């Protein structure tokens, strides 16, 4: 009986390295560290090209961005980070229904943000801001587009957890899995926290 309880406890906690931390969580943090450098490089490229408008001087950050619209999207993404920690708190207290509710709410908030970004890109395209218009537009689309891809991956991960839980197939190590997916989601959020300020709120001189 005691050994069963110990085995169940070990399974619930996941595999731990000799450092006393979960291998999966360590891998997630290693990925987040490297992704931070990846986005750092993309932001640096954007800063270099933000003033390069080539033959389209009418398409600039000051003329093209819709700050009120992006502010609402930003607020929604920020609140989705709260959603995922509330899902984690529910998983930690064994509240499956609460966990599913917050996982779905987080995925929906992420989808709303992504829909906003697709709408924004569509409007920009209609106004003549294409990928190849200028170095500024190229760096803008690459930077925000890569972030959008990360949001899409996060939504898929959240919906996978939600679907597996609904089907009764998500029964072990719930809090650890939700925490690791949550770490990825928070990373997507902190990247946007930086992008919102650097790309949208601080205008190029």
């Amino acid at each position: 009986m005691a050994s069963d309880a110990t085995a169940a406890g070990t399974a619930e906690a996941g595999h731990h390295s000799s450092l006393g931390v979960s291998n999966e969580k360590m891998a997630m943090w290693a990925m987040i560290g490297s992704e931070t450098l990846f986005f750092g490089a993309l932001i640096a490229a954007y800063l270099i090209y933000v003033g390069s408008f080539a033959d389209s001087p009418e398409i600039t950050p000051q003329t093209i961005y819709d700050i009120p619209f992006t502010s609402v999207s930003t607020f929604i993404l920020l609140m989705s980070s709260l959603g995922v920690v509330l899902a984690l708190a529910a998983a930690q207290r064994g509240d499956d229904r609460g966990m599913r509710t917050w996982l779905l709410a987080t995925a929906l908030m992420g989808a709303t943000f992504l829909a906003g970004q697709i709408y924004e890109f569509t409007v920009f395209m209609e106004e003549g801001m294409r990928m190849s218009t200028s170095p500024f537009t190229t760096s803008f689309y690459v930077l925000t587009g890569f972030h959008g891809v990360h949001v899409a991956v996060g939504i898929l991960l959240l919906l996978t957890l939600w679907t597996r839980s609904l089907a009764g197939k998500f029964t072990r190590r719930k809090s650890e899995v939700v925490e690791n997916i949550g770490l990825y989601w928070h990373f997507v959020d902190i990247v946007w926290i930086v992008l919102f300020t650097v790309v949208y709120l601080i205008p190029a001189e």
Partner: protein
Amino acid sequence: MTDSDTREGSEATEGHAEQEHHPGVKEYVEIGIILAVLTAIEVGLYFAPVPRAVAVPALLGLTAAKFVLVVLWFMHLRFDSKWFRRLFWTGVIGASALFLVTVLITTL
């Protein structure tokens, strides 16, 4: 047992102990409200007639505050193992160095 074994053992124990302390729902909601307020201030600063020399440092400060709040409380870096902190801050320091060098190159 070598010093290295002892050190690794104590860090392993610390890793387990640190993971025990996660914030509760109330604290999460409080952090969420603070993040919302800081974002509102950022947007307000954008529209307010504030000189660029004041607005830019203020916006960067608010962004740093939001970043740190999410990382320390929502991502539990304040409570988790130091190994995670080392991995993350290595990436942040590298990205920040790249950011600062780029700003210097483009403004000088």
